[in-house]
């Protein structure tokens, strides 16, 4: 497994609080890396640093490019992370374009490619064939992913009207429509029932095995984390306390202390 992402000495400070403190870890291509830890451990902050929502106080986030060479994420702005580094993410509290249809959500995710094809709207405004073809491709890509998660029948309904579990799925496939090399999922199983969680785990595994996608996962559902992760990073109070394969993490005394020693840990 080749190294795709390496986070080096990441620190994020808000006033006097170090939400993330000198955290380093790596994530491999075609692998699922989980970040776990009690509430307030700094997991989402790591995600926000990775995806340009926060600019870290210290540290580097280095991503290998498909074409060779590297790109450093800590300097990029939000939209550049997706557009240039091909890192996509979902959110803890689902963020869909609720008033737009399911299909439109997936088309928006392919904005940059379509925008180029429409020659920044000029060709599109006059309905030139180059743009029409690009749009057809975009719809086909959307249909492919909708088929995969069984949402094809709901393609033309507003995203906000979907049931909760389907909204989670839609948010994930929307991120996939950006054709990412790294997919960051922030608690994708939160609020799902047992069978939905199992289905999600199977889907993530397929993404890794069939599409060679690297996934970074924040999750509280330990059953799922232990079941699908290739590698687990444990954070507590903003620091990394463990970094190993699931089997090793289960036995790690520091991890057990962090979870059981904390009364509010879920």
């Amino acid at each position, binding site marked *: 497994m080749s190294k795709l992402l390496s986070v080096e000495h990441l620190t994020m400070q808000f006033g006097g609080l170090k939400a993330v403190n000198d955290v380093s870890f790596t994530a491999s291509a075609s692998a699922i890396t989980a970040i776990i830890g009690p509430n307030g451990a700094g997991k989402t902050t790591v995600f926000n640093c990775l*995806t*340009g*929502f926060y600019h870290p106080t210290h540290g580097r986030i280095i991503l290998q490019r498909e074409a060779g060479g590297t790109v450093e994420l800590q300097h990029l702005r*939000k*939209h*550049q*992370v*997706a*557009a240039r580094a091909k890192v*996509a*993410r979902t*959110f803890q509290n689902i*963020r*869909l*374009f*609720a*008033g*737009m*249809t399911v*299909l*439109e959500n997936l*088309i*928006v*995710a392919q*904005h*940059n490619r*379509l*925008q180029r094809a*429409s020659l*920044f*709207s000029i060709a*599109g*405004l006059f309905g030139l064939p180059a743009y*029409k073809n690009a*749009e*057809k491709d975009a*719809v086909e890509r*959307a*249909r492919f992913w*909708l088929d995969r998660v069984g949402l*094809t029948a709901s*393609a*033309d309904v*507003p995203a906000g009207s979907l049931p909760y579990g389907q909204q989670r799925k839609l948010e994930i496939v*929307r*991120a996939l429509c*950006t054709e990412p090399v790294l997919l960051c999922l922030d608690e994708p199983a939160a609020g799902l029932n047992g069978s939905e969680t199992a289905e999600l785990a199977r889907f993530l595994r397929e993404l890794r095995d069939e599409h060679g996608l690297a996934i970074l996962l924040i999750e509280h559902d330990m059953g799922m984390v232990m079941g699908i992760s290739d590698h687990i990073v444990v954070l507590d109070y903003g620091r990394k306390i463990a970094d190993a394969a699931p089997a090793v993490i289960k036995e790690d005394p520091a991890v057990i202390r962090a979870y059981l020693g904390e009364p509010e840990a879920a």
Partner: protein
Amino acid sequence: MLRTPLREALLRPLRDGALAGFVALVLCLPIVGLPTSETANGLILRPRIPEAIAFAVAVFLGRFALGVAEAGRPRPVALIALLVAIAAPFIRFAPEFSAALAIGGLFVALRASLLAFPTLAGRITGGVKIPPVAIKRAPLVILALLVVLPLTPVIDRRLLDIAILVLTYVMLGWGLNITVGLAGLLDLGYVAFFAIGAYAYALLSISAGLSFWGALPIAGLCAAVAGLVVGGPILRLRGDYFAIVTLGFGEITRLIAINWSSLTSGSQGIAQIPRISFFGVADFTATPDAGRHAFHELFGISFDPSHRQIFIFYVILALALAVNAFIARSRKLPLGRAWEALREDEIAAQSLGLNLQRIRLSAYAIAASWGGLAGAFFAVRQGFISPESFSFLESAVILAIVVLGGVGSQLGVVLAAIVMIGVPELVRQLAEYRMLAFGVAMVAIMVWRPSGLISRREPSIRLGAAP
């Protein structure tokens, strides 16, 4: 609906009504009941206490009636309210009181009948089922009517003037709808672009001798550039901050127009702006200048002063339709979808690689350029412009048309422009109350439907009917 016992059904509404009536009395007593009046010896009071009390009584009755209707007895309430509304004009008290009673009575009657016939209410609030063919054809029918309108004998000069005015507001409403409706940015200074376009045409035509048709694109361009320059730094701001900053921009533009007298001749305004020509080919005059053609000679018809006005009507119709076509087209483009995505959730949109700054800027600048075109049209039609025409109130009126019509809805803008601009122009007695009604309507519609009257949204693409 639960039917409560009569005593209870009357008691609570009575209490609510008394409270509302008391509050209304407190509010109205000094402001309505004690108007000040200027005399040679300074201000004096001319009390109108009975009127103030009458208003409070009307509020009491209205609140009471609504309460009774809500407590399970809507039918008698609807009937009585309707009778009151019909009888109101015959009450010989104060005309304002009659008006209040009539409008209030109608409102209560409507509310009560909606309660009385819940299925009807459901149908109205859930959207009346109109056959899709009708929806598709309706704009075409309206368009055909508009095209032949100036040629029909029913239309006179005044009506045509009103139609032109309404169409100007429709165009402005559609232009602003790009920012407010599609991009979700509350722009309170749209009138600035209207002003820039108007001044651009006025100055270019007077000092550089450009014709309307030559100056029109430049006016649009000037407004777009202004939009780019202003929009650049402010588009990152949160919604309400953005709104206030645009308001500031609108007012700064107006104040500059007032104070930069050497360019704009200040608050006197610019008069004698050259009239529109027939595409630069011919003028609308009985006796053309040397070397120019006259419109009626060109077509071999006799001279009629209304020709220019009819032509102006077609110009604004064409301009408005151009905005509409542009919006319809761009909604189906990546850019249009990106506008809507940023309106729905800017954080998610950015995480998908959308450049917030650039996409919003495009919406703002494009809307600005349409505003500029409308401004140039305004200047050529009036022949006179002054900063007075570009106050914040004007921005608020355009915004009100967009909001009342239903944010993002093209047809809604047309309806709102007709109701809010056309009707008060037709019925001059209402003009005085127009802005008052504007204010009330804005509040009422926000409270009743925070997303506007027509809030149905047509998907920009369907999986079934993908191209």
